[in-house]
């Protein structure tokens, strides 16, 4: 390569770099401008700084939380258990309910590409796009107060994620075992059982355990809208302005979640 060609190439690289730099500058400028506008709305228009008071006042209200209400602990055992069981059953029901959704929404096993497949995909997104609080509100008004509403809300919220990951795993299976089973005369159900299931089972179990872990967090807030568990205790402590009690409930939630995380780690190791 001659020196002139080399110089030309260097020049071209420099120009393209400059261009890219300018474009990314515009992009980050846009992000920053939007952030400024939003920050203005939040901090200047919406916040009443006079009522918020000085930093000292805020710190004082933070300080009220920094204590533990030991007398509450015996009353926490039952809601903790309830929360944990709600998460378990909710995940289980969700895993069962998502089977037809997976069947419709996986491209290679769907009964019809034009009707069932889009419907399955829609159900997956739909289930995930409704927040668990909204699901809980719907089910509390349908089946009444109590843990059944929480279980159903958790189940509905879990369907989307489990179904999506499983459907993607089914779409990516190795077709050779399926062909082999077809070749020896297996019918559709047998293909499903011996060709597809062994391939996707580890993924499915891992996803269910992951979702179970998240559901413990979610089931801790179901009580806020009347669906049982620790959320109800939390709400009660909050409306009684018993701030140390609130801290105690949060610590018990954390404890439950740590236990869940450790358990899910070992269960995952055991099943996969």
């Amino acid at each position, binding site marked *: 390569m001659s020196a002139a060609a080399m110089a030309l190439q260097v020049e071209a690289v420099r120009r393209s770099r400059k261009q890219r730099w300018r474009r990314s500058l515009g992009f980050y400028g846009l992000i920053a401008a939007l952030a400024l506008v939003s920050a203005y709305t939040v*901090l200047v228009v919406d916040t009443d700084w006079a*009522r918020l008071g000085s930093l000292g006042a805020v710190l004082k209200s933070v300080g009220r939380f920094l204590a533990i209400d030991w007398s509450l602990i015996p009353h926490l055992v039952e809601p903790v258990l309830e929360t944990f069981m709600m998460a378990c*059953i909710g995940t289980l029901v969700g895993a069962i309910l998502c089977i037809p959704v997976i069947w419709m929404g996986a491209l290679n096993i769907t009964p019809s590409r034009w009707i069932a497949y889009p419907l399955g995909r829609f159900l997956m997104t739909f289930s995930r796009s409704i*927040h668990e609080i909204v699901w809980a509100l719907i089910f509390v008004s*349908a*089946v009444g107060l109590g843990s059944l509403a929480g279980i159903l809300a958790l189940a509905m919220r879990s369907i989307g994620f489990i179904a999506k990951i499983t459907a993607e795993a089914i779409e990516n299976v190795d077709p050779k075992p399926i062909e082999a089973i077809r070749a020896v005369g297996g019918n559709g159900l047998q293909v499903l059982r011996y060709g597809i299931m062994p391939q996707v089972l580890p993924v499915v179990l891992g996803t269910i355990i992951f979702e179970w872990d998240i559901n413990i*967090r979610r089931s801790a807030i179901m009580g*806020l809208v009347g669906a049982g568990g620790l959320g109800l205790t939390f709400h009660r402590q909050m409306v009684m302005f018993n701030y140390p009690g609130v801290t105690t409930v*949060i610590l018990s939630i954390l404890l439950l979640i740590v236990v869940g995380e450790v358990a899910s780690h070992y269960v995952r190791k055991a099943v996969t």
Partner: protein
Amino acid sequence: MPAAATARTWSRYRYPASLFRFLALLAALVFVGYAFVYLDVRLERLLDLFQRLGTLLADRYYPPDFAFLSTPRYLGSILDSVQMAYLGALAGILLAIPLAWFASYNMTPSRRVLYPLARLIIMSCRAVHEMIWTILFVSILGFGMLAGVLALTLFCLGFAGKLLSEEVEAIDKGPVEAIRATGANELQVFVYAVLPQVRVAWTGISIYTWDVAFRAATVVGFFGAGGMGWYLQRHVQQLDNQRVAAIIISIVALVLASEIASAWARAAVAKGK
């Protein structure tokens, strides 16, 4: 040796392992059954669930009061939700970037101090549900969007921090060693060896974080933090069910739209590199 006289039954697990698996399964079943009893689940309520849902939807929630959706105050609250989600996601991601660096076991500058500290921060942000953060901030700072933004920031910090640090833990060590061999310090290694490798994945995660933040932002108002959830809570308490139906429909439509947009943006980023 004679030809196998007895047909051998093959099983995947031999005697002790198979027994343990059976017992574990049995224990899980007993636990689930006991949980139903303990929670006092009225299964008979399930039977008329659909009927009740049907009459509920037909008599009380139908027809949704769509006229309410186009009132200026509700449209304003949608904008509020979008802005809260934007600020929360942005602040959460910006805070998550250094934390993700510290919390990735392979690249952290100090495994003794910063690694566990960053892990702890990310885990505790993730462990507490965003609604509980919202309630806490509302009780400290009062009603309004500020509490919502802070709650969403912590939520996004936990969410993005975990995903970003997992991405860093999966990088190729080659460029890292090359940059380190030139005498670069930890920050330079991060900027020139780690960032270029994770840039695309991090962009995708950031878009996804926005998505999750918006979904949460539509309901944080339920506990007093501004946005559409505020109206949801008000009309739920007033038993103004036709408005509740309209608000829920609008939330679902907006979240679906944002999800589709973000899926498209993520695909574009992954393709464009």
